[in-house]
């Protein structure tokens, strides 16, 4: 990136005869930097150091600007007191450039977060399903992401964060995946039918009826050739072609009774399948030809989820004892990450590497609350938890402000209701790093949880 020395424009004297004073924000578009105008207003409401959630209600399609205030960095609040969702986070995916993260939850919402600053950009509601959103996937081109709640499949656009289409099927949905070319959506229904839908129209393209077994997990190979379903004691491999009734082309039996295949993932090069068993064991399979390669004991009592990075060199598994990363194909253990929280020690329900393979997102939670945590897997440190103050902070502890946004519409932000409401004195700075002259948001239960942004040492 070359630095540019632009010519400053010739302005007037500040008496306002020609141009009004303006301030600017640096924005990125396709990796290039550009300046965008910002308004002066709302600078005195919940600025640096406060936890903010901005929800845009109507109007402006410019989601990026509507949710911002003067200082858009959110502190990395501890998960001890704050959550991402009102229910377990079932699935998590990154978009193509890793700057956004989508989480699907049992609370029947999908939330889109800005990474790594943690702003909540958008929220989508589901189909009033008691289990909420159970499936979520993103296509390889970064154009769409799809989710399933109850019987309904929803398709969304990454570029403008809008819902494109929804379609209701005739049965509950157990699993969802995009085809490699992004033109089809593979839907596993609870009646053991695999349905192929067109993208973006969500029209039925064809179906494949699977044998009526109990499936615990589903994986589609990146080249779209194989569909793997996991059940007790074996993995069934189906060749997906011509949408006919299929019987498994291969059965991968691992001969252990009472070992459900709880999670599976194909490597990005399509050469291997990694299966995770309920007993905490991993089995590596070669796909061409299909054969057993090796087993790996992980030390976890059970494995709830698995993810592999885009290079296929590192994979992560999650269980109650935490998250473990391993090299592939050697299976050398790298790091173990245990979430320290007094609230619960649940196993992660989902894992996802970011596109540059530097971060690992994990979704946790029980029925009462879900947590989305970002790990730096190379060091094993937690970078942040994504926090939605409005929906997770106690209602009597927050205050909501509404003001007119530039370009029309209203912007609503919710901040913790500060009981001390103490102004930070000039030349002093609170532990929450509030800009001096503004209200300190250090409440009795939050002062020790505010952490300064981690990018630059101060």
């Amino acid at each position, binding site marked *: *990136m*070359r*630095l540019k*020395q*632009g*010519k*400053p*424009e010739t*302005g*007037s*004297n*500040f*008496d*306002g005869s*020609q*141009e*009004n*004073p*303006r*301030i*600017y*924000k*640096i924005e*990125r578009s396709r990796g290039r*930097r550009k*300046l965008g105008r*910002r308004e*002066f*207003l709302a*600078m*005195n409401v919940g*600025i*640096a150091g406060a936890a903010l959630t901005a929800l845009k209600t109507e109007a402006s399609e410019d989601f990026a600007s509507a949710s*911002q*205030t*003067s*200082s*858009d*960095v959110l502190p990395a609040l501890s998960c001890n007191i704050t959550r991402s969702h009102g229910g377990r986070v079932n699935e998590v995916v990154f978009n193509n450039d890793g700057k956004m993260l989508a989480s699907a939850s049992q609370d029947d919402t999908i939330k889109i977060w800005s990474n*790594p600053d943690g702003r909540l950009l958008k929220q989508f509601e589901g189909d009033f399903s008691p289990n909420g959103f159970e499936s979520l996937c993103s296509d390889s081109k970064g154009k769409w992401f799809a989710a399933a709640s109850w019987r309904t499949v929803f398709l969304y656009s990454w570029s403008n964060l809008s819902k494109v289409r929804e379609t209701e099927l005739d049965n509950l949905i157990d699993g969802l995946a995009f085809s490699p070319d992004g033109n089809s959506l593979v839907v596993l229904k609870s009646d053991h039918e695999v349905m192929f839908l067109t993208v973006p129209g969500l029209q039925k393209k064809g179906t494949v009826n699977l044998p009526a077994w109990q499936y615990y997990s589903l994986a589609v190979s990146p080249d779209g050739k194989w569909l793997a379903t996991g059940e007790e004691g074996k993995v069934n491999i189906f060749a997906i072609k011509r949408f006919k009734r299929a019987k498994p082309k291969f059965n991968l039996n691992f001969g252990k009774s009472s070992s459900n295949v709880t999670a599976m993932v194909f490597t990005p090069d399509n050469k291997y399948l990694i299966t995770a068993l309920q007993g905490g064991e991993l089995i590596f399979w070669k796909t061409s030809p299909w054969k057993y390669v090796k087993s790996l004991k992980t030390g976890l009592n059970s494995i709830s989820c698995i993810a592999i990075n885009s290079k296929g060199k590192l994979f992560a598994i999650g269980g109650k004892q935490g998250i473990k990363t391993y090299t592939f194909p050697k299976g050398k253990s790298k790091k173990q990450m245990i979430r320290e929280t007094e609230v619960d020690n649940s196993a992660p329900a989902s894992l996802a590497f970011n596109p*540059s393979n*530097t*971060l690992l997102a994990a979704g946790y939670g029980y029925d009462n609350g879900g947590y989305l945590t970002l790990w*730096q897997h*190379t*060091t094993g440190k937690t*970078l942040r938890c994504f926090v939605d103050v409005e929906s997770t902070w106690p209602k009597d502890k927050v205050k909501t402000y509404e003001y007119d946004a530039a370009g029309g519409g209203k912007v609503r932000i919710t901040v913790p209701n500060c009981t001390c409401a103490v102004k930070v004195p*000039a*030349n002093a*700075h609170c532990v929450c*790093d509030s*800009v*001096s*002259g*503004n209200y300190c948001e250090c409440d009795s239960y939050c002062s020790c949880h505010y952490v300064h*942004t981690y*990018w*630059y*040492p*101060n």
Partner: protein
Amino acid sequence: MNTLKKPCLFCIPFEGKWIIYRPLLHAAFIGNHTMAELTEHCLRYPDSEVPQEHVEACGFLKDIGFLEPDPPPPAQTDFKFSPDAAVLLLTNRCNLRCTYCYAEAGDKALEDMPLELALRAIDIAAENAKNNDRSFFQLVFHGGGEPPQHWDVFRKAVDYAESKSHKCSISMSSNGVWSKEQRAFILEHLNGVSLSFDGTREVQDAQRPTAEGGSSFKAVMTSINKMDENKFPYNIRMTITNSFLEKLPECIQFFCEETGCRNFQIEPAFGSGREGWVNPTPEIADRFISAFAAAMDVAESYQSDLTYSGARPWMTVCSFCSAAESALVLRPDAGIVACYEVTDASHLLADVFTIGRLGPNGMIIDEGARENLNLMRQERLALCKDCFCVWHCGGDCSSRCFSPGGKGHLRFEERCRINRELSKELLARYIERSGVVWRSRIEVTDENSDFPGEPSIDKQRRKNDVTSQNTEQH
């Protein structure tokens, strides 16, 4: 540099607008020309009335604390020299032959520090720390050679420092090429290492070959793996030469992926050999600036920190480094110097930076030399006062900008341009990350200091005035 400057307010051209920057407040945002002028007016005439159409903008400046008075800048050198850090330039032996080594380590006549000298320096640092109510003193082994190469003295000095009743922090700069015994000792007894490591195998072996001309990469990686395994704190200091400028991002990615380190310092070496600092051509400077910016992108994607000594807008200093102020920097020949690079008496700037000797009974400080050095630094700072980097660069590294023989200051050349461009790039990134306004912690290390202003350059004061700290005649 076209700037609108008022005391401690700088407006830096940036992509058609201005970065409006208050360095002592560590605050910056981007505005148009009118905003820059309005800010200047509000600072200069805080009680004046502002036109109605600018009330909102003024309110913004007040809300973000941009109109506050500057905190006092850091004080100039306290003339009492009472160092609580012993920095030992232990030896000029080296097991590598780095292509850019400023000390030509390994190629000169051997100079090893006698043990007795090292122990004396440790005694002084420990005593001063106690007298100054510091909770610990420091023992640092620095370059001009590879400290563990003088193993016997190294080991004994560490043991001696640890045996003192006052707590000690021990660290060193090293190339990481250690024997098994050395590695075990270092991991057990030191508190940290600044590791000189230049990147991928290709770059490392080209720039830092062994004394026999072989590869040093594997040995350094072994040390790194051991430090990572033992969670031993270290940072990586990387030197990049002209031939490998474009490899800088790749090297940073390598560090992030293959080591546990997350703090990297990059320093350029623009010369073609072991002749020390050379100012780059404008073309080379541009390449370094671009490569560094690209490397910053890579480091950010790995949540790692990348620093360059000439661009530190998060700091507030009145001198580039503290070698002259709080450290007893000792050469093997017992010379006390004010610069880590002046490793022997043949250095071009030895006269300027040698400020005393460590005698059998204590430090013999040439107060005149110290005062002279201080005056030169103040002169430099005054010459730099129009530059927006002045409060974090502190007039730049003295060994880069003093003319040999103590006769003046070198011109502000490409290094200054590099410092400014990268500082501006950092400010832009801070603003981008913060949203609209960057505010950071304010590090004020001293109080009651005036802005340096124009020093009184009285050449008659630059006399050699040798004083002794004890009563003995020399």
